[in-house]
């Protein structure tokens, strides 16, 4: 459990445009919300009109050691609002470029779900590339900002798994987040 008075060290930035229709993401989001040492930030709920408060978002980023991005993979990328969030918040002079070292030394952790099964993400699968390759743009984002790239947490075939299976994934995801939170607290 999180000790009292301690600020969470992990910020989960969550994006799902239609969470009410996604069983897997609802359970996973619940796990993140409940995890100790974690602040859960729901982008589509906060900015339904896509008008992002850049300063508030930057303050949030600065206040946490670990930035976790949780999203369903759509067309091999993040949902639209998360892309918009990256475009508008991770600015030159803040996150990268000249004077842009404010995120340096932090960790970037991606947790995402896919519709397709694990074997589709393979050189000979119908998606032809591995998850590692699809997540390269985010990995490079971390690198450019001087952040450590944490090993992503991926749930494949989210629609096909039964409730028990998804609950298992959620427990593992929560443990992973709490582990990140604990180690981040030690390093700080």
């Amino acid at each position, binding site marked *: 459990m999180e000790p009292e008075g301690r600020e969470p060290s992990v910020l989960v930035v969550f994006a*799902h445009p239609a969470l009410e229709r996604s069983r897997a993401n609802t359970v996973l989001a619940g796990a993140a919300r409940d995890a100790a040492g974690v602040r859960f930030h729901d982008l589509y*709920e906060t900015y339904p009109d896509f008008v992002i408060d850049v300063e508030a978002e930057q303050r949030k980023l600065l206040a946490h050691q670990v930035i976790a991005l949780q999203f369903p993979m759509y067309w091999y990328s993040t949902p639209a609002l998360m892309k918009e969030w990256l475009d508008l918040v991770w600015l030159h002079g803040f996150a990268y470029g000249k004077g842009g070292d404010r995120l340096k030394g932090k960790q970037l952790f991606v947790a995402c779900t896919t519709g*397709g*099964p694990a*074997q589709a993400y393979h050189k000979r699968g119908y998606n032809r590339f591995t998850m590692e390759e699809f997540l390269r743009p985010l990995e490079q984002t971390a690198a450019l900002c001087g952040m450590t790239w944490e090993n992503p947490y991926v749930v494949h075939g989210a629609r096909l798994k039964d409730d028990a299976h998804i609950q298992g994934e959620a427990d593992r995801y929560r443990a992973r987040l709490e582990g990140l939170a604990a180690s981040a607290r030690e390093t700080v």
Partner: protein
Amino acid sequence: MHGDFLTQALVYLAAGVVTVAAAKKLGLGSVLGYLIAGALIGPFALNLTGEAEDVMAFAEFGVVILLFLIGLEVRPALLWSMRKTIFGLGGAQVVATALAIAGASMIFGLPWPTALAAGLVLAMSSTAIVLQTLDEKGLRQGPVGRAAFGVLLLQDLAIIPLFALLPLLATGPVQLTSDTHSTSLVADLPAWMQALAVLAAVGAVVGGGRFVVRPVFRFIAQSRLREIFTATSLLIVVGVALLMQIVGLSPALGAFLAGVVLAESEFRRELETDIEPFRGLLLGLFFITVGATIDFGLILREPLLLIGLVLGLMALKFVVLFALARVGGASNRLAATVAVALAQGGEFAFVLLTFTVGAGVISQPLADLLTAVVAVSMAMTPLTVIVYEKILTFLDRKNPTESIADPTFEEEDAEPDIIIAGFGRFGQVTGRLLMANGFKSTVLDADIEMIDLLRRFGRRVHYGDATRLDLLRQAGAERARMLIVAIDDQEKAAELVERAREAFPHLTILARAFDRRHAYDMLANGADAVERETFEGALAMGVTALKSLGFRAHRAHRAADYFRRHDLRTFEELRPMWGQTEAYMLASRDAAQTMDRLLAADLATMKPGAADGWDPSGRDEDQREAAEQEGPARPA
């Protein structure tokens, strides 16, 4: 031949329609139009009117309705806040004007009781003419209107003691023992019982309005009988007027009181819309009868005397009221405007003069003369106001620093990008958004208090009725790119759009519309785009409701977006049909069905498990197959 009702109606209506339309076109205002109509058909010109006195008694009911409608706009709290104006300025006006006129009359050799009676009678102003004129100038809501109305209200109150006081001034023989003009049933009772009767009547109006009228209206509203609602509204006004007459109060005052009592009821709007047409017609009729009573015979016999008396009366009344208003702290402009507006004699004078003749206070020839003076002074009012406005405009042009009653436009305002007409709840938001984004704008508004406030915040706001083309021109309409019509008077807004479109074809005109119908009217009048004033607010409320009911914020937002798109589509689809009522009704019923379908479809797509780009459940089968195959799958 003019006894028969239809002929009479034809004469009045035809005269009214022709002269009022002409007067409006000439910029003279409708009041003057009616008065001219009356003079034309009156006994001294074409002599087409029959029993003008009967018609007048009927038409005076227009004034009663006017006061009722005004009462509906005056919440009790507002009335309370006006008490200083009513009793201070109003009381001082009646006393001071009466004394001044009495003094002047004594100089002309009248004995003091007659002079005082004439002074009291002539101290009254014309509620109908003043309020109608101010209304047309867009001045009734502001401080000018409030001050003028306060004075008029006190004059109405003063009628009661006047009926009691005037007989005491009797010098000549009393012709009538019991006063036949007053229908007061309590006139013969002792004073304390009269007072009691008055109190009881007022109590009945207040209590009745609170506890009887509302349940009755609720019942009638449920029965959905439109014309019964109208009839009941009229019944109330007539009933109150009669009750007031019985206890010797002014019917107009009683109607005003009834209006105030009902101002906070849920039926206010309906009462207004139901009674409004009667007010317009009857007031018009009233003005016509005033026009018809102008005794041109007398004027022709003694033109100089009459002109002298009229000018003297109006000058005296102006000076007294101007001085009093200045003492009360009003600015020069405000005081002058109020004083100009109230400088005429009133319709009460007609009644009072007949009464004083009966009571032996004033002789018949003098009463005839004064009646003519009052009628002519009433007819002069719209003209003096026009002249007064011209003088103000001239002064402003010469000295463009100080101004509030009329607009001035400083050099920097000369070339705005945008003109915003109406800076109330609606115009403010639109205007602030545009100004915040660096556009220069000139704002026109008719509420002086609002303008003062905004000016204190350094905004460029100007006083004026934007439907006046000369004001728009001065505001820079010839060089501006856009006109935003945000005034809340529906008819004025439509009129403004039409005129501006004609006079300034290059302007992009955006108009605030009351509802769908009004929006179509505005488009037909030449607006480039319209916004229904409550649409976006209602939609936003819907979003809040959906969220409170458990919708995710983004889902609620999109639901509103879908809804807006559909509604705007039907709005466009129905537009060509606008004007053909039948077709429109049918089509809009169809649109309601479309809306049903759309909502149903919305419900279906937003249900968990439905397929779209965010939720590719349609591909589940493919993927299940792929997952079941051993090893990596081929592309689906």
